[in-house]
């Protein structure tokens, strides 16, 4: 690991964890807690993104709420997906492309977290999602489908928003920083 990657990973994790501050101030129904991971995928590639996802989830799990440790695999999935999409598909070339990739990731992430929420936590995750689950369950939907629908809805919105925020950051990247992260230009499809 180079010193710059060593310095980048803690800051990216910090971004992941500080996003909660902003969305709760704005009372928006998203987490945006993978912005740092996706951003690192665009700036420094899949391996750095994987390290960011791993450290994020471990820190969250140890210092915030250890049930989040169960969702480690989902964070790693986000990192791998974002890394591959940035390296090979230039997903940050335009806003619709970024949003679309986020939407697909939302479906994947919801499908990956579904069995964990259901089997380990009996369908109870974050309060908002659980409320939707309870309402759907009350309407007669079987629990497993209620959990899936609720997490699908939130994950699609969240991951689409995440990719759009990263798109906004990359297109606002000043020349001084862009020159220091050559991979960013590739992810935006403007060079290389």
């Amino acid at each position, binding site marked *: 690991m180079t010193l710059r990657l060593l310095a980048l990973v803690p800051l990216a994790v910090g971004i992941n964890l500080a996003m909660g501050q902003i969305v709760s101030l704005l009372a928006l129904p998203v987490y945006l807690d993978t912005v740092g991971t996706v951003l690192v995928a665009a700036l420094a590639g899949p391996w750095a993104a994987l390290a960011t996802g791993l450290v994020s989830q471990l820190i969250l799990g140890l210092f915030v709420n250890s049930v989040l440790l169960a969702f480690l695999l989902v964070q790693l999935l986000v990192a791998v997906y974002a890394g591959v999409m940035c390296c090979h598909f230039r997903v940050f070339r335009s806003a619709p492309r970024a949003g679309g990739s986020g939407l697909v990731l939302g479906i994947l992430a919801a499908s990956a977290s579904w069995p964990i929420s259901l089997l380990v936590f009996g369908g109870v995750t974050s309060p908002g999602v659980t409320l939707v689950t309870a309402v759907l369950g009350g309407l007669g939907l079987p629990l497993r489908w209620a959990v899936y629908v609720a997490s699908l809805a939130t994950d699609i919105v969240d991951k689409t928003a995440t990719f759009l925020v990263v798109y906004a950051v990359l*297109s606002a990247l*000043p020349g*001084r*920083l862009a020159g220091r992260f050559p991979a960013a230009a590739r992810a935006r499809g403007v060079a290389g």
Partner: protein
Amino acid sequence: MTGIQLHDVHFAYGARPVLCGVSGQCGPGEVVGLTGPNGAGKTTLTRLLMALEHPGAGRVEIGGRCTDGLGPADLADQVGYVFQHAGRQFFSRTVLADVAFGLRQLGWTAARAGAAANAALAEVDATRMAGMHPHDLSPADHKRIALAAALAVDPSVLILDEPTQGMDRPGMLRAAAVIRRRKASGTAVLLVTHDMAMLAECADRVWHLEEGHLVLDAPAPGLLRDPELLHRHGFTEPAQVAVGRTAVRAGEPAPIRLADVVSAVRDRLRSPPAPTAG
């Protein structure tokens, strides 16, 4: 009465008192320098003025309004605030767009906001930066751009937290000239600074805070000319005042502003005074 008025303001973070009965006023066309050691309560006082905090007791009035029940966005059309870490507020791709952002938030049209932003950038001599990315600039230029953003609203009150930190002397003099012009057109300015040379350039009065108490509210020139008073409050005399003193006759008040010191020295070089006895 507009400007800034503090009536026996108390504030505490939890059980720790930060401001203990601070009173004072800074009227239109007046520049007050706020000084004090780190932790004396300077930043807290500016946060109260911007309605980011509200006093535990007493009243804070700014631009003719009491801050009770108001939030920072409510004051944005009357009060311009430059934060100490000014570089952290920028997010646009150009300096011009970032300066115009605040104006657009106040509901100005794009054309009006653009014109005001351009005028404000010209006022701080930063027109050449209008098309640049704010994050490609130095911290000193961030201060300059943030000052332009605060001026663009044409506020009746300006609050500047360390506006010259990281600047070299030409930058400091440029900022001081902007503040003097705004003062002349009736703006009340609160200038939080450690920079004695900056106070010499543009402050009318100095408020000195120590451990939450306003221990000094004095005219700035008098303070700057009094080495003993400066020393008692932990200040060092700016070099220009010392030079000014050598240039004038004994008993005459020493010039304070750099330009006045220069002319005093020039006069002295032209017509050396007769040697004084003793």
